C-alpha cells in the first residue's frame, strides 16, 4: 500500500513536470554568422557536407601541396570566429562548438588546428 502511494505520488509529480519539457527539448544552437555574405556553398550544402568538403581538401593540400582552395579550415575560421572571443570554440555560442554540442558530435579538428583567428601574428609567422 505504501509503495502504491509512493509510486502514485511520483507519477503525479512526473505528469506535473511534463509541461515544462513538452515542446522544448534541447535548445536549438545559436548560430551567429559574424560576417554575413557569400559562403563557399549554400547553407544546406554546408550543413550536410562541410566535413566531406574539408576532408577532401585536406588531402589535396597536405599531400599534393594545392594551396588556396575554396574550402579550407582556416578560411572557415577567418569568417566564422566569434567577434567576442576570436574563436570558433570556447562556448556553445561559438560557431563550430554550438552545432557540434547540439548534435553531440566530437570535434577533433582542433586537437591540432588553431581555432582562433589572429594567431598568425602571435606565432611570428607571416601570412
Amino acid at each position, binding site marked *: 500500500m505504501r509503495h502504491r502511494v509512493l509510486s502514485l505520488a511520483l507519477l503525479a509529480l512526473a505528469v506535473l513536470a511534463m509541461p515544462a519539457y513538452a515542446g522544448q527539448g534541447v535548445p536549438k544552437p545559436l548560430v551567429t554568422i559574424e560576417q554575413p555574405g557569400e559562403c563557399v556553398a549554400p547553407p544546406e550544402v554546408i550543413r550536410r557536407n562541410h566535413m566531406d568538403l574539408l576532408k577532401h581538401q585536406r588531402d589535396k593540400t597536405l599531400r599534393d601541396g594545392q594551396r588556396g582552395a575554396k574550402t579550407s579550415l*582556416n578560411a572557415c575560421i577567418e569568417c566564422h570566429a566569434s567577434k567576442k572571443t576570436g574563436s570558433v570554440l570556447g562556448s556553445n555560442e561559438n560557431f563550430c562548438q554550438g552545432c557540434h554540442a547540439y548534435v553531440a558530435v566530437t570535434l577533433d579538428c582542433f586537437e591540432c588546428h588553431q581555432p582562433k583567428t589572429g594567431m598568425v601574428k602571435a606565432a611570428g609567422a607571416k601570412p
Partner: protein
Amino acid sequence: MSESPKPEAGRRAFLGATAAATAAGLGFVALAPGVQLIRFAQAKAGMEGASSKVRWGMLIDTTRCATGCKECVAACATENAIEPSSGRPGQSSQWIRKIELKAEKTGHEISLPMMCQHCAEPPCVDVCPTGASFKRADGIVLVDRHTCIGCRYCMMACPYKARSFVHETLTEQNPEVPRGKGCVESCTLCVHRVDKGQQPACVEACNKSGHEAMLFGDLNDAAGAIAKRIATTPTSQVRADLRLDPGVRYQGI
C-alpha cells in the same frame, strides 16, 4: 528530371551544358569536329600543387656556421610555434638542432644544424604502418597527422634522429602549422612558406644574422644557386653510405 515536362530536351540541354563546362574547365580548344587540342589551363594561384620536376633541398656550409649561434633553431621555434615541454625538457619537440663536433686528433671544431634530411628514399616512409609518413612530389617528407597513430616506428627508423613525438596538449599553434598531441612530427622544410614562394624560416634567419651558411633551393634547377654550388664545390650527404639520398647537403664536413 521528373519535374521537367520534356525529359529528352532537359537531358540534352544538361549534357550540352556539361560538355561545354568541361571543355572550358580543362582548356580544350576545338579545331574541327572531333579534333581537339588540349591546352593547359591556367590554374588558380597555388592550386597546381607540388611538382615532381622540383626537388627541394638545402646546402649547409659548415665553414660559415658559427659555433654557439642558434638563430636557425630559434626561428624554427617561432615559425612553427614549438615550445619546450612543460617540466620534461627531454620530451620537447626538436625540428632542428645545433651540433658541435670536434676532431680529437686535430682539435678542429665544426658546428652544424641537423634536421630532417628529406631523403629521396626515406626510411620513415618505408616503415610507417598507416601511410601517414609520406614524401611529396617535390621531395619534402611530411607526416599526415590525420592518419598518424603515434606508433613512433618512423622515429626508430630515422638515422638522423629527426623526428619528435608530441606528448602534451598544444593550444598555441600557428594556424598554418597544425600540430597536436599523439602525433610524430619533424621539419617540414617550412612547406607552408615554400608553397608561397618563400624560404624556410631557418634559412631566412641564418641569412639575416649575416652567416649565410644555409642555402635553400631546387636541386633539379641547373641554373639555380644551389645546383650551381653543389656542382662546383665538394659537398656531402650525412651517412651517404645508407644510400637514402638526402636532400640536405653539407659542405666542409
